[in-house]
Structure formats: structure tokens, C-alpha cells
């Protein structure tokens, strides 16, 4: 049963999408089946996390080929937490699409739901695999479905965004494959636990550090760290909002997950060099991302630049490389996935009401929709790190970890970026919600009036309410989440348990 739990997060989305392809033209059926699938995924992911929490790291050998020869699926607390978040975001976006407003009917009938499920499968697979080449395969599964989701609909802006996104990701895959190939040539294994053992006793530390840099580049592109982030703000605002919400929540975080995994398990021989470099990059990522956002006046573009800036915080914990810092990173990822997806969903709700994402053309939302405005304000303040919301605890943990080992520069950068994030969020608040509606926008509002069906809007707002409540909940009862993050970080920094679970299973 426990072995089954490791396979189900991959099987459920695969099975769901297979059934969905059979019901190709029946959108209504597809909506409900997807919702059912993502609910099942959430239950299984929750059970998996509970099992890992209770019994320690779980591992299973696919096809009973013993490690290190076969492919291992392994879940420690970090990956189980990520799977839970994946399922949760899948669930939120499925409800959002259920309203019929999150995605237009044309896209819906051309494979939106099957693709979304394949995407969830790729993401869960990447989190659960214990084999570095298998991780490449899951990345490709995730990428190809994201390519299609991004380009689906074929609007000009979408195609241009997809061109950049596809090109940069293919380059990143090529680098990934190069790194895996050379790694195999040097060490002769691909199982990550086995790699950890063999890399630890390596005779060629120089070559291993070079390999570490190759992995930093490939996962850095996926995670959108400085200076490899430019593709993200160019593409994330182009697809329909349900798609960009799931991208914003999950895809870059797979890159962050992979970075944390390889730089805690495999490449810890030369921490002084590699992790210091990561720390410096994290500082630049934070600052450049937030400054980029300051110049933007498009709702989703601002949010896209903030993804980059927030990735900096997650990498910062890895760069500091203390138990508390890694726990801070894990906490930050949990907080960020929930809040960021939520903000994108809200931007979509705003667009449905007003017909535009341009801040200059928006306005008067607080007067017309006070409820939605409060729903925006909570995750926005959480993103900026205002107590007592989830973002505050995430930043607090990271800042404390930085102070403990006297890395004052990065702490200063983190605090400054928090302030600038607040500035950005205030800008959106002032422009979209607070200022009166510009006269020139009457036509846009009238054009969007068809969307203002109260019943459908309620469904659209439902996932936003759920995610906002989660943000508040994590803020008010931060201790269990912090305990989870601390335990996850302990497992990450002491790989012996991971290695034992994989090699002994």
C-alpha cells in the first residue's frame, strides 16, 4: 500500500488524461472528470505526506529492478510536500476552469484538460523520481505539455511568447542532458542516492564542480534565476490566466526543487565555491526581479517579474546552507506557490470583470467589488511579507538564518526587496482597485459585462477564497508548517537516511 502511494501521484493524472482524451468533445464531462482526478490526486498526496511524516522516507523500485540499476521512486518530506502543493494547485485551477470563465470554450475543447493533467503528471514525476535521467524525462513531459498549453489558441502574443519559451527550454534540456551524460561518464551511475555516495569519494573534484555548474545553469534556466530569467516575463503573461496561474505556481518551482535536491544531495564537495555562487546569484535575482516589476504597468507582467524576485529568496536559503536556511527555503516555496497562483487567479478575475490587464485602464474595483479587493489585498500583503501572513514567517526564517551566520549583505537585500515588493503591490492596489475608473475604459467594461454572471463569478472566486484562507491559516498557525520545513531540511542536509531508503529498499 505504501509503495502504491508513490506511484499513484503519477498514475492518477495519466489515467485521468487518458479518459479525458476519450471524451474529447464533451467539455462538461471533461471539467468534472478533471476535478475528480485532481481531488483524488490531492487525497493521495496528503496520504503520502502523512506516511512520510510517520514512517520516514519512502522508496520503491519500479519493475523490481534493484537500485542502483532500476528507476527508483522516492519521497522524502520535501518532495511529498511539493506533491501536495502540486495537487492543491491543480485542484484550484480545475475549479477555476469549472466556472467556464477561466478558460475560453475554444481552448477548452482542444485538449486543455488532458494537457493540464499531463502537466501535473510531469511535475509530480519530477518531484518523486530518484534517478537523474528519469528526472530529465519528467522535465520533458512537463515541458511538452507546457509548450502546447502556452501556444494553445494561437494568438500572436502567445506564439511570440511560446517561441522564446520553447527555444530557451530546449537549450536548457540540452545542457541538462550534457550534464547527465558527462556525470554518467565520470561516476558510472544515474541513481541519485548512489551518485551521492560515489561523488562523495570522487577522485576528480574539479570535474565534479564543473558538472555542478552545468546543473546550476540548466536548473537555473528552469527556475528563472539571474541572469537566466528573461524568458519568464516574456511568456507568462500571454496564455489564458488559468494556464499562467499553474505555470507561475509550479513550473519554476520544479527548477528550484531540482536545484535544492542536487545541491544538497550530490554537489556538497565544494560548498565554499558552489553555494557562495548560488547566494550571490540569489541576491541579484531578488533585486533585478523586483526592479523589473517596478517598470511594468501590466497586471500579469508585474506578477511575472515578482516570480523572478521570489525565486531569489528560495535560492537564498540554499546558498546560506544551514538547517534553518534550508527550512526557510522550503517554507518560502510552500508560501510562494499558494500566494502566487492566487494572485494570478485574481488578475484573471479582474480581467473578466474589466476586460483588460492594463493598470492604466483599470480602476474603481474597490468601489464596485470590495470583496474581491480584500481577496487581492491579503495575498499581495503576504507576498510583501507583512505579519501575520504566511510571507512574513517565510521571510523571517530566511532573514534569521542569514543573521545567524552573519551574511548581512544578503539579509539587507532581502529586506529591501521586501519593501520594494510592497511598493509594487501598492501600485497595483492604487491603480486597479483604488483610483476611480478612467472615462476611457467605459467601453472595455461594457464589453466585459457579458462575463458578469454572478453564479459563474462565484465559482471563479471559490479557489481564490480557498487559497487566501490557506495563506491566512499558514500565517496564524505557522508552527506546524515550520516544523515540517525544519524536518524536511534535516532530511535534506543529512542524506544518509535518503540513501539508506533508496539503496536498502
Amino acid at each position, binding site marked *: 500500500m505504501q509503495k502504491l502511494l508513490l506511484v499513484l501521484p503519477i498514475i492518477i493524472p495519466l489515467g485521468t488524461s487518458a479518459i479525458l482524451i476519450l471524451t474529447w468533445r464533451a467539455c462538461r464531462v471533461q471539467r468534472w472528470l478533471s476535478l475528480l482526478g485532481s481531488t483524488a490526486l490531492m487525497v493521495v498526496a496528503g496520504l503520502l505526506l502523512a506516511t512520510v511524516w510517520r514512517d520516514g522516507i519512502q522508496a520503491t523500485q519500479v519493475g523490481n529492478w534493484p537500485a542502483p540499476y532500476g528507476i527508483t521512486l522516492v519521497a522524502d518530506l520535501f518532495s511529498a510536500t511539493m506533491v501536495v502543493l502540486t495537487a492543491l494547485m491543480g485542484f484550484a485551477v480545475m475549479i477555476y476552469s469549472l466556472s467556464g470563465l477561466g478558460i475560453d470554450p475554444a481552448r477548452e475543447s482542444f485538449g486543455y484538460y488532458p494537457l493540464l493533467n499531463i502537466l501535473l503528471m510531469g511535475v509530480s514525476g519530477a518531484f518523486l523520481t530518484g534517478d537523474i*535521467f528519469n528526472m530529465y*524525462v519528467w522535465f*520533458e513531459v512537463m*515541458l*511538452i505539455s507546457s*509548450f*502546447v498549453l502556452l*501556444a494553445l489558441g*494561437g494568438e*500572436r*502574443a502567445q*506564439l*511570440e511568447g*511560446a*517561441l522564446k519559451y*520553447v*527555444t530557451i527550454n*530546449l*537549450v536548457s*534540456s*540540452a545542457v541538462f*542532458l*550534457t550534464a*547527465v*551524460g*558527462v556525470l*554518467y*561518464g*565520470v561516476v558510472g551511475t*544515474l541513481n541519485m542516492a548512489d551518485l551521492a555516495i560515489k561523488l562523495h569519494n570522487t577522485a576528480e573534484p574539479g570535474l565534479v564542480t564543473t558538472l555542478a555548474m552545468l546543473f546550476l545553469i540548466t536548473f537555473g534556466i528552469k527556475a528563472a534565476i539571474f541572469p537566466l530569467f528573461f524568458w519568464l516575463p*516574456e511568456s507568462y503573461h500571454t496564455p489564458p490566466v488559468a494556464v499562467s496561474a499553474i505555470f507561475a505556481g509550479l513550473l519554476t518551482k520544479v527548477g528550484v526543487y531540482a536545484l535544492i535536491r542536487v545541491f544538497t544531495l550530490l554537489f556538497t564537495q565544494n560548498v565554499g565555491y558552489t553555494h557562495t555562487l548560488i547566494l550571490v546569484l540569489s541576491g541579484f535575482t531578488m533585486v533585478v526581479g523586483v526592479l523589473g516589476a517596478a517598470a511594468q504597468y501590466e497586471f500579469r507582467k508585474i506578477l511575472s517579474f515578482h516570480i523572478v524576485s521570489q525565486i531569489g529568496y528560495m535560492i537564498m536559503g540554499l546558498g546560506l546552507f544551514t538547517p534553518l536556511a534550508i527550512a526557510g527555503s522550503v517554507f518560502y516555496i510552500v508560501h510562494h506557490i499558494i500566494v502566487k497562483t492566487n494572485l494570478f487567479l485574481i488578475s484573471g478575475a479582474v480581467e473578466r470583470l474589466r476586460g483588460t490587464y492594463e493598470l492604466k485602464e483599470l480602476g474603481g474595483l474597490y468601489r464596485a467589488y470590495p470583496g474581491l479587493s480584500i481577496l487581492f489585498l491579503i495575498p499581495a500583503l503576504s507576498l510583501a511579507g507583512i505579519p501575520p501572513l504566511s510571507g512574513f514567517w517565510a521571510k523571517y526564517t530566511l532573514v534569521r538564518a542569514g543573521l545567524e551566520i552573519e551574511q548581512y549583505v544578503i539579509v539587507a537585500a532581502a529586506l529591501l526587496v521586501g519593501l520594494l515588493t510592497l511598493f509594487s503591490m501598492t501600485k497595483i492596489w492604487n491603480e486597479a482597485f483604488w483610483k476611480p475608473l478612467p472615462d476611457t475604459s467605459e467601453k472595455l467594461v461594457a464589453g466585459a459585462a457579458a462575463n458578469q454572471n454572478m453564479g459563474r463569478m462565484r465559482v471563479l472566486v471559490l479557489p481564490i477564497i480557498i487559497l487566501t484562507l490557506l495563506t491566512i491559516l499558514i500565517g496564524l498557525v505557522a508552527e506546524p508548517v515550520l516544523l515540517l520545513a525544519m524536518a524536511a531540511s534535516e532530511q535534506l542536509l543529512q542524506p544518509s537516511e535518503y540513501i539508506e531508503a533508496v539503496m536498502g529498499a
Partner: protein
Amino acid sequence: MEVVLAIVVGGLFAAGLYMMMRRSIVKLIIGLVLLSHAVNLLIFTSGGLTRAEPPLLPEGAEEIVMFVADPLPQALILTAIVISFAVLAFALVLFHRVYQSVGTDDLDRIKPAEESVTHL
């Protein structure tokens, strides 16, 4: 033999990256194709080259005693070829659609939509 292949791999990487930096969208995709070939050859080379030593057990033998080729790099390459074939086929169609919708194959002239609107 390793040296020759290393040079070929290096050449393919250089050619692929050079092609990607050209302005034409067609050259971009040729660059991506060359890049994926370079990586496949690199895995092949780094896995170790051996001649005429198939990893097969002779009849009746319980375990391999002599030196044999490592079959894993080839399995990796096979997987990588299948994946890159699918992804590049998709990319080709996508780039064709971009060409149709933008009306140019010059990457420098493909600007974000909102900017190009104001310039027209």
C-alpha cells in the same frame, strides 16, 4: 577515436549555438537540431567506446567475466532521440505558425505584440 568524436561534438555544439544566434527562424531550429545531435554524441562518447564487445552472456555462463560494452548510454541516447524528435517536431510546427502570424522569419523583427502595434 575519442579525440575524433570529441572534436565532432565540439564542432556540433559550436555550429548549433552559432546557428541559434542567427536572425532567421529556420536557422534557429537547425541550431536546436544540431545541439541535440551534439548532446547525443557526447553521451555516446562519455559512456566509453569499445569495439565488438556486446554485453551478452555466452550460453551457459552465469555472469559476465570478460570486458563488455556498457549498454546504458545507448539506452539513454535512444530515449533522448525519441524525446528530441517529438519536441523538435512540435517546435517546427510552432515556428511555422509564428512565421505565418508575424509574417517575417527575422527574429529581430519579432517584437512583443504591444510594441509592434505602436510602430505600425
